[in-house]
């Protein structure tokens, strides 16, 4: 194995191949606080890419309710248990990644979901078991909170699916970092399904090959955000490019949120893949849970996010989420408005930090009537 730099772990780690970062890396930020689990993203993806035979069970995009939801079933818990409790020391991960803890004869520490594990994509939906008049019927570790976690392929810098494939059928595009399964070369061994800790590679029993999220690369190549982004009702998503470590740009929306303000964090960084979908953690979930999912910076990230209303640049950037179909490569705030620019530097969207509020009096004195809210 090679030694590579994983900035999310604050250290070097072992990986199957030498470090080879792409010229540009596709990345995204999801604001968990805005997601309402309407599953429009899920259907946007489903109708676009996975309506074929053998793809019926596949959800390249899914939204699960944390803490109990998961698709496939317990994908996260199983691996966390296999890792058997690992430790961070400040911002440095001192535990073992799934590459470093690979058993003898394996490329990564992994497991393969069975068919029934895919049977309940919405398991745990809205489960929070809060206070009721006659006392709680159940006593569970997480009682009075939940949040929605939207997930796609993380197009990782160090993909475990790619490392797991014994025949090099999975590749990371040098031009944009998107991770793809070569459908002409895959022989359906399902090693990638076993290796991906996020379980975002799916075996198609009709074609006999494994398939996965392609980050809507035909759209990305035209500077347009993927289907699950542009169809998001809650405007929780922003697609863009994350710079290489040491080349961070303050006017790059992803860099600003991830590297500068550190308000958006990777999902399960401890697995060691350097995933490139980043999450603004939920403000109502316990810090300990957030830290398990998003790493040691989760507490500070919530504080920064809570203060966004007093933080015009951050608030402005958050206003760009869902504001345009185009990929915003650069942003700039001028006073009370923020502008997003595409890769060529053309302004593609301008939005105010605060929408004007119009209060319509309940009593219309001019017309001598009282307005009501129902037709």
């Amino acid at each position, binding site marked *: 194995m090679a030694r590579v730099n994983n900035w999310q772990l604050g250290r070097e780690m072992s990986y199957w191949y030498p470090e080879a970062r792409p010229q540009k890396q596709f990345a995204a930020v999801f604001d968990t606080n805005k997601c309402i689990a309407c599953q429009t993203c899920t259907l946007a993806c489903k109708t676009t890419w996975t*309506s*074929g035979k053998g793809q019926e*069970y596949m959800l390249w995009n899914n939204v699960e309710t944390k803490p109990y939801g998961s698709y496939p079933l317990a994908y996260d818990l199983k691996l966390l248990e296999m890792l058997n409790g690992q430790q961070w020391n400040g911002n440095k991960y001192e535990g073992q990644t799934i590459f470093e803890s690979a058993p003898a004869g394996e490329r990564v520490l992994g497991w393969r979901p069975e068919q029934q594990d895919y049977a309940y994509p919405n398991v745990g939906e809205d489960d929070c078991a809060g206070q009721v008049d006659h006392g709680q019927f159940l006593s569970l570790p997480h009682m009075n909170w939940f949040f929605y976690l939207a997930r796609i392929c993380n197009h990782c810098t160090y993909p475990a699916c790619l490392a797991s494939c014994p025949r090099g059928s999975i590749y990371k595009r040098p031009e944009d970092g998107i991770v793809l399964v070569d*459908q002409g070369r895959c022989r359906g061994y399902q090693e990638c399904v076993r290796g991906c800790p996020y379980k975002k590679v799916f075996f198609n*029993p009709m*074609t*006999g090959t494994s398939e996965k999220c392609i980050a809507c690369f035909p759209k990305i190549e035209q500077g347009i955000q993927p289907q699950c982004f542009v169809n998001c009702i809650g405007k929780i998503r922003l697609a863009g490019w994350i710079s290489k470590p040491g080349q961070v740009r303050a006017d790059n929306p992803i860099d600003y949120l991830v590297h500068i303000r550190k308000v958006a964090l990777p999902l399960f960084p401890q697995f060691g893949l350097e995933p490139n979908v980043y999450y603004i953690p939920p403000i109502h979930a316990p810090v300990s849970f957030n830290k398990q999912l998003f790493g040691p910076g989760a507490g500070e990230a919530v504080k920064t996010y809570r203060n966004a209303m007093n933080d015009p640049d951050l608030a402005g950037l958050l206003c760009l989420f869902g504001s345009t179909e185009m990929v915003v490569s650069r942003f700039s705030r001028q006073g009370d408005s923020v502008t997003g620019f595409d890769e060529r530097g053309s302004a593609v969207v301008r939005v105010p930090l605060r929408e004007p509020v119009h209060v319509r009096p309940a009593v219309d004195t001019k017309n001598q009537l009282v307005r009501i809210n129902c037709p």
Partner: protein
Amino acid sequence: MKYAVFILAIISAACSRPQKTVNEVVAVSAAKLPMDPADRAWDNAPAHIARMIPQDLVEPRLMTPSTQQVTIRSITNGAEIAFRLEWEDPDSNDLPGPAKMVDACAVQIPEKIEKDLPEPQMGQEGKRVQVTYWRADWQAAVNGRGDTIRDIYPNASIDHYPFESKPLEPGSGEQKEMAMLYAPARALGNIRGGPRTVPVEDLVATGPGTLTPGPPLGANGRGVHGKTGWSVVISRRLPEGLAPNQRSHAAFAIWQGAKQEAGARKMRTGWIPLVRRGS
């Protein structure tokens, strides 16, 4: 009664042909290749019993040995060569799916007869090997299993496929073209699943991880699962230069789907001498 059983046992032993075992794979001549694994013509070919070892040279390795041995017989008609592989496997696994692997076997032969053999594990650069690969799900397709999700999941409920909806006419060019959009592997000619005319494929390799479709060698096959395991016939064109009484080599691999074996996770043999008998 005791004597009757004893006499019956003696008669039975006398009637069944003793299994001739040899320490190499001997391809005997016949006018016609028997493609049915149960064809009595196979009794004329001596059996070679090959001990199998786990693939433990490259990751992912097979860490728990499964198939202990494979019994190999071979027949040639002078233009093609057929092998019958028999191994114990009480479970027939011919349905693919998530975490569901299928039973399979393969015959590997050096592309050229040379003094220095290629690496037994998938060959090496400059020393290509030819692999003829059979799979149980492909056999099921050849035997008549359909190409719908209900053929794999009988209770599946299908709401809608966009490529099977009006105004597209079933079987029309437009309809087939649209269906391919939702089956990218098939569109690229990578026929891992679905309709097949033969349950085998011709492959070549120059080392682990390099397996790729090779020049057509007319491969064919037929596998039947019995009470104790599989009996599979694999045929292909006679290896180049394998004249009567000449030697080449062959290696064999077995995958048990029930044990999650696929790809590199397999039981294999080393090179075994392959001799063509007859004129």
